[in-house]
């Protein structure tokens, strides 16, 4: 009798075990049902916040080299490429609105903006300088930059460490990429990540102020 029960139990165990294995595979693949796209997967895989913002040498629109960790200020950073047909400009327009929503006493004394291009092949200092001028002359504290003396491979590794996914579609040459905004503390740590496609300007500004106040206290 016990043997019969055990055999019946064993048969039930087959679908149960299959289900457990299948759920585990999906769980692992989506990092605990949280990362369903390559964008969220790359971001989650880079680590939870707060975490250090990886260091890299950069060159700004005026040809001056710098490291973000030497700024010792809050930084709002995003990644673009100038040949982008649509989304990068949309995000930068949103960033411009956010810039003008923030008090002028905060920028650039406590907070600065950084837009970093990742198209090492096509973008150069002249192009980013011209691109910056489209946003007006009153954007003091908003730096447009390029990676400086960094190979493609190193830069790709850097982006992965930041949590940015980028993929150049072979047929069109369009670079599809993550559009996250990273709020970096004066201690060079990523403390907030915004998704401009989902977060409204008001929410982003409110959270930036909240982080600034926490730091003052």
């Amino acid at each position: 009798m016990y043997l019969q029960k055990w055999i019946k139990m064993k048969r039930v165990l087959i679908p149960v075990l299959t289900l457990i294995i299948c759920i585990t595979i999906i769980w692992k693949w989506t990092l605990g049902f949280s990362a369903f796209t390559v964008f969220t997967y790359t971001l989650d895989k880079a680590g939870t916040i707060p975490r250090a913002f990886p260091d890299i040498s950069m060159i700004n629109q005026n040809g001056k080299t710098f490291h973000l960790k030497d700024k010792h200020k809050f930084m709002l950073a995003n990644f673009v490429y100038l040949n982008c047909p649509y989304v990068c400009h949309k995000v930068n327009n949103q960033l411009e609105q956010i810039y003008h929503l923030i008090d002028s006493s905060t920028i650039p004394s406590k907070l600065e903006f950084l837009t970093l291009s990742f198209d090492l092949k096509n973008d150069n200092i002249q192009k980013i300088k011209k691109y910056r001028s489209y946003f007006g002359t009153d954007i003091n504290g908003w730096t447009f930059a390029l990676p400086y003396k960094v190979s493609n491979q190193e830069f790709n590794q850097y982006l992965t460490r930041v949590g940015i996914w980028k993929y150049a579609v072979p047929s069109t040459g369009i670079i599809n990429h993550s559009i996250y905004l990273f709020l970096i503390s004066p201690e060079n740590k990523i403390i907030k990540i915004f998704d401009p496609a989902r977060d409204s300007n008001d929410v982003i500004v409110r959270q930036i102020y909240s982080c600034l106040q926490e730091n003052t206290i």
Partner: protein
Amino acid sequence: MLTGKYHIIVLLIVPVLFVLISFPMNDWFSETMPRHQLLQLPAMILLGLITGASFRKLSIRDTFGGIAILIFISTSLIFWMLPHSIDYAVINKPFNRLMHFNMFIAGFLLMPVLRNILFEVKIIFLGMTSAMILAAGITLKSFDILLCSSFTILQQNETGFYLIIAGLAFFAITLFVFFKGITVQKNTTSGSGPKAAS
């Protein structure tokens, strides 16, 4: 079901088509999202299904084993519909081949299971699959955010639209199987009614 020379023809044609879709035509299929999701992926399932159907004697009679296989098939479908998996399949060729193989195996196992599985289980499986296709379609159609980095939002929306249609068609098939099954069940006076419907 296929027998004799048809069986041989199927077994000769299917591997050729599999290799053709998986190797020389792979780049063409990977170029746009509708081709990848609506042509390549179902083509592999279909090839598996045809192969499975040609093995007439191959039949999984154990209900629990059948349910386990249906769970595997459902998970395979879910896995390859995730934007993360779609992107990796397009970027990474070995991963793409894994998708082809997995879809072929899923299709191959489907027919021997559905031949003998309980009517209720069959309806649940078909209903869940149509709901899943519909949900994936609605998500892709309604999202204005790029979900797969290998494609465009336009292609994503287009794929979503056709997935909705496919989901509805699958739902219609489910309803047909359901009503056919309960009609047979009503007409059968002996106990094995629902199974006869399958």
